[in-house]
């Protein structure tokens, strides 16, 4: 807030201005720490609250109560004194004995600095959805469709939504609330999954509000008269040079199709781990979420002192848990910075700990309900492109795996899959699960893809002219 504080070297750098990052930055700054909050987007909010400050009241209400809640968080952040650098990309992180070396750029000028505390709040990304034709123009992820709706109020009429997961329902509901017609919803959720999920995770039934929210979205779809197909077993986007339709296969083995120029795909979100992986932090394979998750203690502290992971980036748990996990990590960070005693930190974290526990009880239920089917995670059709950047097909990968290249890193070196500009964000999990599927090895026992700086691309000039700071006083 004050010029004096801006000139200080930051004590803590937070990566990501979503619910977890904003909570962490606000708490640290309110306690007097010099905080730098780095985020790629033009405004705070993360994916869930994207554009919340700029949105009109009408727009906010269409997007729902959870979206509107973002205003509280952005206001708190603005008042906290944390320095927020929007439009900033973090491209490097490596742990030091305590703290870390961290590199970021505003697109013109790259910096590299050391800092005692880093909290990664990099959130989630959508799970890849490798089906035939998913690379055609006109096909987009549901998250991408939501981004357009939130940031520029753009919506495509007559789109087909396909897949599974709460975000699929939410965005369909947001489309319908905005008065945009939807051609069909093709659900890949396994038939009977809801009942099985409830059976296996009865704790969720103690939170009827959440269940009600889900059922309310489904009811909205039905009320709007949208064609809603459940139990889809196979999907194929049709078209030569752009999407012209989508075909689906039911349990009877027959393919049916519908014409559309817009296909929105989604099958859940997974932690964004490129940065935590590149930092060499320990990760574990989560068999419920079918994804890699950084190993942390209950404070979000990783194996490297001063390096924390909070929010969905530390395992998918939703925005409320993310906000609480950001708060808890901030208390632990204040202890590290000598600004809070461990006893006080435990006390202050107690309410957030309870929120995290409550949200955590729901997670097994949601994970089981919306578990993406293997057929959509490991492509059956050998022609299906897995690595979009290098255009490597499932068939090419399988041939290489059959030759004994049974690890993602070997597969990458051999086929170039995962080497492109997206830095494997859209194929790392598919590579991993394809290897597990074909070799019969448990996914958790296969070494994950290795990530290296730059974790996001940056120009040769940015790298060649980068500034090396011991502190990072001048952003």
């Amino acid at each position: 807030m004050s010029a004096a504080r801006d000139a200080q070297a930051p004590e803590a750098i937070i990566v990501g201005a979503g619910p977890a990052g904003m909570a962490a930055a606000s708490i640290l700054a309110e306690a007097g720490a010099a905080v730098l909050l780095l985020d790629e987007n033009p405004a705070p909010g993360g994916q869930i609250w994207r554009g919340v400050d700029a949105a009109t009241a009408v727009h906010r209400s269409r997007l729902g109560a959870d979206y509107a809640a973002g205003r509280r968080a952005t206001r708190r952040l603005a008042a906290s004194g944390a320095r927020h650098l929007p439009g900033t990309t973090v491209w490097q992180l490596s742990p030091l004995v305590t703290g870390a070396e961290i590199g970021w750029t505003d697109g013109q000028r790259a910096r590299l600095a050391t800092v005692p505390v880093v909290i990664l709040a990099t959130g989630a990304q959508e799970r890849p959805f490798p089906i035939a034709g998913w690379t055609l123009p006109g096909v987009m992820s549901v998250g991408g469709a939501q981004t357009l709706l939130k940031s520029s109020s753009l919506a495509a009429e007559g789109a087909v939504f396909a897949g599974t997961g709460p975000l699929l329902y939410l965005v369909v509901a947001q489309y319908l609330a905005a008065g945009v017609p939807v051609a069909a919803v093709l659900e890949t959720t396994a038939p009977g999954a809801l009942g099985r999920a409830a059976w296996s995770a009865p704790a969720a039934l103690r939170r009827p509000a959440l269940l009600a929210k889900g059922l309310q979205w489904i009811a909205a779809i039905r009320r709007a008269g949208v064609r809603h197909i459940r139990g889809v077993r196979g999907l194929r986007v049709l078209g030569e040079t752009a999407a012209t339709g989508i075909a689906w296969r039911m349990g009877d083995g027959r393919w049916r199709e519908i014409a559309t120029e817009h296909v929105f795909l989604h099958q859940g979100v997974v932690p964004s781990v490129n940065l935590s992986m590149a930092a060499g932090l320990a990760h574990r394979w989560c068999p419920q979420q079918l994804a890699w998750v950084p190993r942390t203690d209950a404070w979000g502290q990783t194996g490297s002192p001063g390096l924390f992971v909070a929010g969905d980036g530390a395992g998918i748990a939703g925005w409320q848990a993310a906000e609480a996990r950001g708060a808890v990590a901030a208390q632990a960070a204040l202890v590290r910075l000598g600004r809070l005693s461990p006893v006080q930190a435990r006390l202050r974290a107690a309410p957030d700990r309870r929120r995290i526990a409550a949200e955590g009880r729901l997670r097994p239920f949601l994970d089981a309900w919306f578990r993406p089917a293997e057929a959509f995670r490991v492509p059956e059709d050998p022609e299906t492109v897995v690595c979009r950047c290098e255009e490597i097909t499932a068939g090419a990968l399988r041939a290489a795996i059959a030759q004994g290249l049974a690890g993602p890193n070997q597969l990458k070196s051999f086929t170039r899959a995962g080497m492109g500009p997206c830095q494997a964000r859209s194929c790392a999990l598919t590579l991993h699960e394809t290897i597990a599927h074909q070799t019969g090895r448990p996914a958790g026992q296969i070494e994950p893809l290795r990530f290296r700086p730059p974790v996001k691309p940056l120009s040769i000039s940015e790298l060649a002219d980068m500034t090396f700071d011991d502190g990072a006083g001048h952003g």
Partner: protein
Amino acid sequence: MAETADIAVVGGGIHGCSAALHLAARGYRVVVLEKDRVGAHASGVNAGGVRRLGRATAEVPLAVAAAAYWQDIRGLVDDACGHRVSRYLKVARSEAELSAAERRVAVLRQQGFTHEGVIGPEELRRLLPAAAPDCIGALHVEGDGYANPFRTTAAFRRRAERLGARVCEGTAVGAVRREGSGWRLETARGEVTAAEIVNTAGAWGGALAARLGDRVPLEAHAPMLAVTAPLTPLVDAVVGSLGAALSLKQLPNGAVLIGGGVRGRAELASGRTTLDLRGLAQFLATARAVFPALAQARIVRSWAGIEGYTPDHLPVIGRGTAEGVVHAFGFSAHGFQLAPAVGAMVADLVEGRTPALDLAEFAPGRFSEPSGLRTSRRAGAGSSRAARQARFRGSGWSR
């Protein structure tokens, strides 16, 4: 895994796989013991330079011999290895660099090597229109190029396997001791007995050599590389610099691969590497100085692989002090191109034949004894060939 072989090759990089290929082709029973995965370190992640240009004089004959293998790499390993023949230029950005290049070419001609030449500014402009105006000439060779390093190492491995070699990954070698007329190696997967050990352990080769009785000072470093997102055609040659660390090429997909030997940190115990971002900045600045159009190109990945460097940056190739040991390691970040030829030399050394090329400059003992003794060691090296072959036959190991 209790395994018996004629030859245990320790280290499954390209040199280990090449040695295994040549030895298996000659009928020996070979087992390759690789602690990680084949091509996991320098062999799989280097710049893939198939280069004779600019090598130390001592290495030139070996590089020229290897180039003959590269001309028909498919014939050797049954895979194209992503090998592209092109031209290689090391640009000069000062008169001093250019005249040093001219002197070098003259020395090579005296030795009978005519592949390198010097080109002036007009020719450089014609070959490299995107080069900066201050590039005034280059050391030049036709026919050098590059290959896909991981693919190449995998191809050597597969060819060796088809010839009967066994490749054991995840098989670190522990204690090694003489037993009878051969060696017994304890490995992570059981014991291996073999008449001969071939040490192609790369950056880990110095430690293995010490256990086998040879002191070779070796430093581990992690030369770094970076690659851009695909660009429109910019450069149709492999380009280095005479005055700075740089090696640059544009791959078939348009991505520009930039390296040049600037090193990151290597951890031998874990096999991990850490990039040195200051060093990365330095060679990217060099790349931009030579090709200004690269300024806005986006770097999408950078990486490093662990390599062993000798004090004189020449490899160690030769018989060890102990019976039944052949070393081929310490290639100091320029061994990739040499591999097809070095494998043949190693096979000769194992068999006790005198290799086709003089390897005196690469003698393992050169760091631990006065230089005057080198030649006498080499003269004695071939003497026990008959004895060794008798050993193979006597054991029933040889097929």
